């Protein structure tokens, strides 16, 4: 059940209707929890048990941890880490690890024939595992001193708007919202619906109808694409993944707001980033801040000398890449981002040393350079194999000039949309959608919103799942 489907619309209307009934706050929370499990079961019913098991373990562990002292607390934390990362490893990395182990054995001459387990990945397991894990770590750090009841905790882990693809919510942000009865104000409800429309517009009209066909044409073809095709396909994919994921996040935030809940922002004009650390402050913010707070800083961050800083950065980005999927390509994607960050940090240190302060023109140049370099990393994200990624990157370096193979009309439309999106992001890099909406006259807002609804309803496109569901 995805947000861009009629079944979800029906589900949302029913849950919203039930939520408006004059029940006790506890009864409404139970209803929301039931709806969330129903929503998750729609993907694959047995995996509700995995979600439930993860919830029970972390709730129990956190409860025990809050009552224990020092060394024993650490034991409970290890249990939580083991349970969560164990589940994640089994479902997400099991096949990958086994395949690599088999290959390694073959290299040293041992024929290892693994069992064919045919493991199916539960939807959103990376998201709710990280969310649940952050809670036990927060309890361990005593940032949460009063563990919640089971109902509140289960709702925190499984709240359906953000269950399958984030934003990854922190317990400290969400649990306090469950203390008092929540009801969306008229403004919240209206704005929540606007965010849903913006999200669906990004997903259906921009990502699925305009950009995905162009990216697919280049990446699904086995023919080695020419330079123009690879750039067009990759830029189209850069747009597709942004609008697909940002569309989901907008929908999630908007739907939660219709119930009166507040979720954190996940995107802030990432393609207007000036450099790579700026990119990660704008792209998938809930994941990058998670990695920073629960991995990079505990590893020592930048406090333990240059070598440790570099290794911490690389480690964080490699694991961030691996979080996306069990594949060497995702590892490469994370590794290239880590390399970019290390390079940027080195350049900043050098500039500081010689007393250089970049002017406005230089900053503009950094912004212009950041986007194509980010696009190069997307090749590894989108390609089916390393071999394809290699050919694509080589082709992007102007080594395969020749007539374009992509459909010119589709490519032209996609590039125009991307040019418009980039200009819009650069214009809005220091502001927010809400601020822009506030400044616009009422007539412009209505026309804008109506235009988006019109395009959502009329673009010829097949229903597609969100890309990040696979993670």
């Amino acid at each position, binding site marked *: 059940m995805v947000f861009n489907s009629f079944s979800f619309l029906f589900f949302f209307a029913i849950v919203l209707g039930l939520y408006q009934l004059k029940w006790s706050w506890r009864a409404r929370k139970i209803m929301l929890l039931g709806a969330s499990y129903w929503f998750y079961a729609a993907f694959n019913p047995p995996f509700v048990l995995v979600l439930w098991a993860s919830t029970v373990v972390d709730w129990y562990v956190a409860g025990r941890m809050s009552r224990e002292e020092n060394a024993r607390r650490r034991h409970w934390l290890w249990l939580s880490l083991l349970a969560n990362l164990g589940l994640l490893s089994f479902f997400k990395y099991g096949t990958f690890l086994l395949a690599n182990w088999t290959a390694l054995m073959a290299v040293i001459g041992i024929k290892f024939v693994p069992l064919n387990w045919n493991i199916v990945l539960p939807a959103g397991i990376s998201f709710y595992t990280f969310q649940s894990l952050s809670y036990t770590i927060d309890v361990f750090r005593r*940032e949460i001193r009063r563990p919640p009841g089971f109902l509140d905790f289960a709702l925190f882990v499984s709240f359906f708007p953000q269950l399958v693809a984030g934003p990854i919510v*922190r317990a*400290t*942000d969400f649990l306090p919202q469950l203390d008092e009865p929540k009801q969306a104000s*008229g*403004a*919240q*409800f*209206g*704005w929540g*619906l*606007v*965010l849903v429309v913006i999200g669906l517009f990004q997903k259906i009209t921009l990502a699925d109808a305009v950009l995905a*066909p162009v990216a697919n*044409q280049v*990446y*699904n*073809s*086995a*023919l080695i694409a020419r330079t123009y095709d690879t750039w067009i396909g990759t830029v189209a994919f850069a747009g597709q993944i942004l609008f697909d994921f940002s569309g989901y996040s907008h929908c999630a*935030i908007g739907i939660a*707001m219709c119930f009166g809940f*507040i*979720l*954190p*922002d996940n995107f*802030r004009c990432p393609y207007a980033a000036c450099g790579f650390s700026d990119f990660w402050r704008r792209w998938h*913010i*809930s994941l990058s*801040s*998670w990695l*920073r*707070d629960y991995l990079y800083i505990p590893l020592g961050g930048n406090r333990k000398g240059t070598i440790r800083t570099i290794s911490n950065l690389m480690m964080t980005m490699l694991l961030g890449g691996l979080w996306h999927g069990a594949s060497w390509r995702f590892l490469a994607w994370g590794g290239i981002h880590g390399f970019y960050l290390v390079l940027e940090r080195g350049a900043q240190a050098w500039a500081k040393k010689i007393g250089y302060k970049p002017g406005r023109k230089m900053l503009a140049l950094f912004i212009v350079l950041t986007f194509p370099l980010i696009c190069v990393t997307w090749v590894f994200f989108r*390609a*089916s*194999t390393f071999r*394809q990624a290699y050919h694509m990157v080589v082709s992007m370096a102007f080594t395969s000039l020749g007539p374009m193979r992509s*459909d*010119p*009309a*589709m490519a032209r439309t996609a590039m125009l949309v991307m040019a418009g999106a980039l200009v819009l992001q650069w214009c809005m890099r220091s502001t*927010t959608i*809400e601020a822009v*909406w*506030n400044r616009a006259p*009422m*007539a412009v*807002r*209505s*026309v804008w*919103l*109506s235009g988006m*609804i*019109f*395009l959502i*309803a*009329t*673009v*010829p496109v*097949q229903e597609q799942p969100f890309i990040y569901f696979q993670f």
Partner: protein
Amino acid sequence: MAAHTFASHRLPAFSMAKLWLQTACLSMGALLVIGAFNLAVDPFDLRFGPSLNLERITAMRPLDTVLWSEGEFRRISPEIWRQTTMIVVGDSRARQLSVRGNIDRFEPLDTGGYLLNLSIGGATYGEIFGTVREMLPRLPQLKAVVMSVPLERIGVDVRDRAPEVYLMGRQPWRYLLNLRTAAQSVQLLMHPHSLPHSSSDDDEGTLEQLAPKPMISTENLDPWGNVIEGKAADFWKKRIERVRWPLVSQRLREQLIPLAAELRAKDIQLIFFFPPLNPELRQYYFEQLQAEHDRYLQSLAAMGVVQDYVSFRPNNLSYRFVDPMHLEINVADGLLRDVLAHSNLGNSSGNQKSDR
């Protein structure tokens, strides 16, 4: 701890009720206009009568092109690529030619090396030629190319071209509230006597200019575009009406000649393969296109070996069809062996052929 920002902290200050009221009026109005416009123009003739206007539908760009996917490539090991000595290229009728029952793309040859079937369902000539060109660098041992000869324009399914037309039967609103239908409506109003041509049709040559194709009715199709049981021969007859001389347009032949020369220069045998038609359809085909077929054969014979299974049938093979165009799999296997027998890389001895 993370410094999160929250959308609710910056809730817009304007009246939501007023905004949504205006939006509802505007968007509903716009949707009504486009729906009424599409219903009035009805660019695919779906409102008045049962005929699909294939001319209009084929003029539209398909949603996606059918090409080999990287996933399919990965299923075949590099070793097999290196040892492939023969490839089959063509449409769905050539796609059937596989000893392993249409599951795997490759099979070992008795004479060593592998045969790789690179056919694509619904492939056009442009795609077939493109496939050969792109595959050549991957196949260092290649000795023969079996090129199945599709009847131009016959393999394109209407559903691939305009899927929304097929939604009409189930979800009329998806057809009416559709920008592509609207674009087609506008085209039709602006050029009522000429049909638009999409870029993807360019490589199909100038067939329309030489011989305008007749309209094809949907009398043999159910509301969802499937051929009605027992009406398959009639349906394909109607399709054959679309095929006129030249079976391959001049522009495509201009692409084929250098490709054939390139293969000859690399000492790669080129075999043109005409897949069989069922008896009823074959009779109809020859009644309509006998002279064109013979001339076409001659022009191809100048470029390679021609294996004409429309005219001739191997003695040891009785054709059985799943529909008038497509053979049963096991018959197709026998046919493949016959094709191989007539190449330099044959698996078995050649068969005598009976007359048509």
